[in-house]
């Protein structure tokens, strides 16, 4: 049986590439199995998040130790992009896990499954960013998304939670359908012989003239599918409601990890497979980027709820990052996105930590609740100030360096109009970020202070704040590092 033997041989040979992912699967499965869950349940609930955090740290180490290479018949590849974006996904998951602990305690909703789902979802992201084949890409995307559907609807006794879960699931499933349909059209147009991304690029170049419409339709559908995943306008409708309804730690997760992974895959897919048909998707993607920047920022101006504000601002940030996807140079694009996403998830993690800290028992997520924070909790207010300025991209904050790097790339690629738009809309964004600052610093505190929660959280807040501040000093060097970390 030479075929089976060689298959087995290849599998064993390629397995090292997947070690971090396999590790997550094994741990996740053990957590759910009777023995594992019995073990976990025998210890105090508050240690679960700690254990999950350690698991993620181990995964991070494994990621660093994974050798570069390609395997599984060209379905999966470990390179700079994979490693870089896997790190992002793990860091985002780790932040989420820490944030989950006090929140779920307060809601009395601790469960092993919650943490296992985060681990599975993270493994999906790690596969997604390394996928070099339409099939593996789609599978990984679904693995990631399915777990998140459940996590979004996790608070099953709250109407808002169920609404968010259902909404996200239905729209997500719909977008997956679009994605698959687009992929199948492209597969057919490319001659129906390959689903490998690199091979597809060549095949599409050789496609007959009468297949042009088919390719175009396919690419647009794939674009729409990814648009849903990263919540770019006009496929963003789900995001404010879902952000609002999901448990706050999951909102933090949702706004960073899947976006990072999807953008990584986005760059890889469009930069390699569809690089030859750049003309087909450049215009629609430009439109998506421009619309996201404008609508995201303008809609955020009027929000009263902190989570909705962050949802809209997240749409805007994705709009900026789409400029990098648009780049003709996929590698430079990936680098810019990586740096942006790294800073973004730090800041976002910090902001959500502050929100959860103030949230008490699931209440108090309006901007109003930040009134007079500078007097009540000066350090916390200062941390929030740092995050807000950084999110607004005000120099010399960390966020500025990331934005600068991204916009520099966009101008280099010749998207001057879009970049000017990006600059101007980011000036608009300063308004709502500063509005939060103004609320904290210049408005009087309300009567009767809400009971804050989780002293452990304050450590997270300050650690992130410190990271952002240190990053501010290191920002310039971070830009230099970017070049080393991500190499497609």
């Amino acid at each position, binding site marked *: 049986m030479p075929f089976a033997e060689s298959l087995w041989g290849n599998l064993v040979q390629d397995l090292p590439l997947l070690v971090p992912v396999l590790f997550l699967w094994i741990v996740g499965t053990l957590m759910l199995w009777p023995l594992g869950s019995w073990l976990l349940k025998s210890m105090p609930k508050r240690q679960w998040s700690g254990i999950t955090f350690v698991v993620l740290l181990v995964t991070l180490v494994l990621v660093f130790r994974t050798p570069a290479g390609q395997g599984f018949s060209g379905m999966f590849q470990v390179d700079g992009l994979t490693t870089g974006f896997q790190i992002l996904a793990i860091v985002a998951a780790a932040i989420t896990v820490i944030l989950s602990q006090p929140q779920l305690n307060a809601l009395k909703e601790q469960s092993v499954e919650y943490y296992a789902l985060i681990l599975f979802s993270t493994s999906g992201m790690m596969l997604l960013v390394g996928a070099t084949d339409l099939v593996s890409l789609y599978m990984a995307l679904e693995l990631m998304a399915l777990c998140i559907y459940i996590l979004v609807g996790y608070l099953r006794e709250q109407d808002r939670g169920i609404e968010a879960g259902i909404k996200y699931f239905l729209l997500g499933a719909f977008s997956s359908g679009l994605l698959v349909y687009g992929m199948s059209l492209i597969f057919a147009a490319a001659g129906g012989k390959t689903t490998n991304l690199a091979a597809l690029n060549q095949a599409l170049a050789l496609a007959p003239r009468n297949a042009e419409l088919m390719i175009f339709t396919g690419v647009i559908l794939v674009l729409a599918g990814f648009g849903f995943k990263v919540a770019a306008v006009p496929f963003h409708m789900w995001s404010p409601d879902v952000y609002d309804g999901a448990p706050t730690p999951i909102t933090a997760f949702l706004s960073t990890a899947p976006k990072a992974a999807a953008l990584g895959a986005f760059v890889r897919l469009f930069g390699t497979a569809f690089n030859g048909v750049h003309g087909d998707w450049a215009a629609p993607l430009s439109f998506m980027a421009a619309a996201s920047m404008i609508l995201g920022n303008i809609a955020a101006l009027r929000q009263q709820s902190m989570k909705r504000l962050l949802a809209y601002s997240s749409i805007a940030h994705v709009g900026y990052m789409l400029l990098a996807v648009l780049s003709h140079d996929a590698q430079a694009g990936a680098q810019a996105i990586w740096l942006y996403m790294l800073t973004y998830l730090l800041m976002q993690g910090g902001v959500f930590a502050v929100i959860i800290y103030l949230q008490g028992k699931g209440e108090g997520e309006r901007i109003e609740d930040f009134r007079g924070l500078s007097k009540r909790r000066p350090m916390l207010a200062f941390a929030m100030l740092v995050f807000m300025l950084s999110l607004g991209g005000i120099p*010399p904050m960390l966020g500025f360096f990331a934005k600068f790097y991204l916009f520099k790339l966009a101008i280099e690629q010749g998207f001057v109009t879009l970049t000017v738009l990006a600059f101007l809309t980011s000036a608009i964004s300063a308004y709502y970020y500063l509005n939060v600052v103004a609320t904290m610093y210049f408005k009087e505190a309300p009567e009767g202070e809400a009971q804050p929660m989780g002293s452990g959280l304050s450590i997270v807040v300050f650690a992130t704040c410190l990271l952002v501040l240190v990053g501010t000093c290191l920002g310039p060097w971070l*830009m230099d590092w970017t070049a080393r970390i991500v190499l497609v």
Partner: protein
Amino acid sequence: MNPSLPWFQNLPLWVTAVPLIGALVLLLVPKEKRRVFELGALAITIFDFLLSVPLWFQYDRSTAAVQWVTKLDWIPSLGVKFSIGMDGISLVLFLLTTFIGFIAVWCSFSAIGERHKEYYVWLMVMQFSMMGVFICQDMFLFYLFWELMLVPMYFLIAIWGGPQKLYAAIKLFLYTLAGSVLMLVAILAIYFLQAKTTGRYDFSFESFHAMAPIIATQSRNFQILLALALFVGFAIKVPMFPFHTWLPDAHVQAPTAGSVILAGILLKMGTYGFVRFLLPIAPDATKVLLPWFLALTLIGLIYGALVAMIQKDMKKLVAYSSVSHLGLCMLGVFSMNPNGLQGAIFQMLNHGISTSGLFLIVGIVYERRHTRMIADFGGLSKTMPVYATIFMIMTMSSIGLPGLNGFIGEATIFMGAFQVHPWWAVVATTGIILGAAYMLWLYQRVMFGPLNETNAQMKDLNAREIAYFAPLVVVAFWIGLNPTPIMEILAKPVEKLVIQVNPDFYKHEELAKVQAEAAKVGMAAMAAPAHHEAAEAHESATPAAEVHGGH
């Protein structure tokens, strides 16, 4: 070129760092100790000013080169350097900053009633970032400092401002931010043009200035868009009509020290940007757009004066007078000849002194009466003689009475403007006349006339107030009577700038002069090569210097 100094021997760098270090020290003091913050901040700024005085003597006036140069690698992959240094133009404004700095602190002692710690810390950060703008020689660094300025200013207005403070602060922030992001786009566009044409990735001022000939070969649209982006960025900061609307709000709402810093230094950033970037980097496009720019300048000049005239609020009046005075500065800048530019920079300095003085004067009555309405006052000269004297000096300085600082700047600007745009200059003089009118009218309404009972209770200046007005008065007279030292500092850098912007200017004069000399000596054959040399002498510019000396 001066040799590069190691960073620890670089005096301007230390002068810049002192407020930042001071701010960090103040952060450690518990917030109840009001006196410590006041005196500490004053000590820091006075020390800083004294530390900056030697720069005046160290500066080598015989060259246009950037001095106190220090260059360290910062982001090698982007070509960003931590590069600092100053030429005469920066030096003058840098010294103005350290000078206004301690006055701004001193005038806040009685005006600031709450949150002292934050206030003085932000004020120190403000000083640091403003000085940073003037000493840096790298676009990236410049942009960082330029934006950093906004944050402390935002807080100064939004916490310690008047009733509409939040609105004013956010308006200031957004206006300036919108302008500066456009500027950033322009900076990046030049950066990549440079990479494309010369293969260099460099953000230094030098290399940006060296791009001017290459930019001149680009398409007309590119040049004009570039010039417009830079123009809008700086025009908002100046502010020029129609981008000035943030200014009255910010000034009126800001605490006195905030207004002093705004008027004294922050507005100079805009004109500094014009002089430092727009003119040398895109001279051709600027010349194409010049009629438009000049028109806006003159509208600002006259409109500002007219609006100032009808104000009922003293502070608003002074704020609009700033719009008008900076219009005059811009007229000098757009003359693009030595007199105009020198006068413009000189006027920036003067405006910094006289308008800061006027804001302080408004602050004095506001602290005593908690109103700034002109109608509430009258006859103050009877009860407040010292105040009346200082007010008169500052008014005269502001309207350009000979013997005081304002006159020198105005006269030089008009000399420059008449050389190139006589009709524009004629129109601009109406602004000056209006300026005299609204200032004197203000003085008359506040100082003379019947004295009502509440106003009769007002105390004259106390020792502290006299102490911070005294340096302003001294400097106003000193500059007015002896402007030569500052003119000397500005001469060479301005000459270099004119060669960059308007090379024809010296070419014509040089040609005439060389021909006259040649005719006199009877060696007409020498004329041609000498002329040729003069045209190429961009860096050394020695022949041009002679012309200027005899000018």
